[in-house]
């Protein structure tokens, strides 16, 4: 790792910190997503300076190394919600399983219905799965890992920005239900939003994304050949 790698990584973190601060000042509205805003600003800078995104990704690779420990650290957030699950653990587990099966099945069916090619069907069918899980799963089948990981994070952005608004419209105010919905539909990015906007419930979103990922790890090796 060179000094330049460190500087680029610190620059991304600073940009994210500024966007998170702005989002906090606005009261953490769903539309002010710091991940999306930071990505948009960096993309604009890269286009303006004529820098290749792949080169930028290589320079920001230390952030990828930090992702692993950050995922482990999410256990500290899930530990905070253990008291909330007393008496509702079964409902939470079944809702996560039902929601994630629905999500994967619906994506797969719709992708076939609109006639997407095989690589896109493979990538979108697993978009409900968090990127660390799907990188490990797709690596086994030589699937489109980079595209699927990017679509997975994009799904998280869509979920963090739109699902809370939709739940508001539908008058679903149960905070536990909202956190689980974010974790299952938008995994890491939406869970990050759930932790910021409702720290006491954010851990439920993490539980949602972990169980969804574990289910995908169990089911996809069995269904992969049939899915495509």
């Amino acid at each position, binding site marked *: 790792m060179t000094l330049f790698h460190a500087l680029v990584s610190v620059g*991304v*973190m600073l940009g*994210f910190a500024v966007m*998170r601060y702005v989002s906090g000042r606005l009261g953490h509205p769903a539309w002010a997503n710091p*991940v999306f805003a930071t990505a948009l600003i960096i*993309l604009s800078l890269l286009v303006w300076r004529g820098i290749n995104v*792949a080169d*930028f*990704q290589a320079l*920001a690779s230390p*952030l*990828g190394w*930090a992702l*692993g*420990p*950050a*995922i*482990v*650290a999410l*256990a*500290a957030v*899930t*530990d905070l919600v253990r008291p909330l699950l007393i008496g509702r653990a*079964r409902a*939470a587990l079944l*809702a996560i399983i*039902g929601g994630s099966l*629905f999500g994967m099945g*619906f*994506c797969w069916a*719709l992708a076939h219905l*609109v006639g*997407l090619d095989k690589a896109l069907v493979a990538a*979108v069918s697993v*978009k*409900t799965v968090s990127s660390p*899980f799907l990188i*490990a*799963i797709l*690596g086994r089948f030589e699937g489109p890992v980079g*595209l699927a*990981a*990017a679509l997975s*994070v994009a*799904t998280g952005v869509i979920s963090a920005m*739109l*699902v809370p608004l939709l*739940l508001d419209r*539908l008058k*679903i105010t*149960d905070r536990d*239900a909202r956190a*689980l*919905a974010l974790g*299952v*539909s938008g995994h*890491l990015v939406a869970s*990050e939003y759930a932790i910021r906007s409702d720290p006491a419930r954010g851990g439920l979103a993490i539980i*949602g994304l*972990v169980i969804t990922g574990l289910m995908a790890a169990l089911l996809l090796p069995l269904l992969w050949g049939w899915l495509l």
Partner: protein
Amino acid sequence: MKSAALYLPGIVLCLCLSLTGEALVRWLGVPLAGPIIGLIVYSLWLAKGRWINWSRPGALLLTRWLGAFLVPVLLGLSLHLGALAAAWLPMMLLMLVTTMATGVVTALLFRWLSRQ
């Protein structure tokens, strides 16, 4: 110096658990991410509650930066614009509809099951 002593032990523990998980999944050849194994082990350790509270500040600090670590992955989407260009409209609609439907179905299922 004081904050380093507060946060560093938790960060180092998470790093060690992530690397151990990675080594374990490679050794066993299971289709799981190493950090997820680390997350499960750390969750069980925290649930046990023995000699672990020292790690919480560092772990919680790491989670605050999770979004920043995902920014380069999201930017990777622009590398696949060629593959997406031919089907951008169905892809966009599919992404929007399925993501929102998954969220709503999960929330409704939980609300219904909680009342049973």
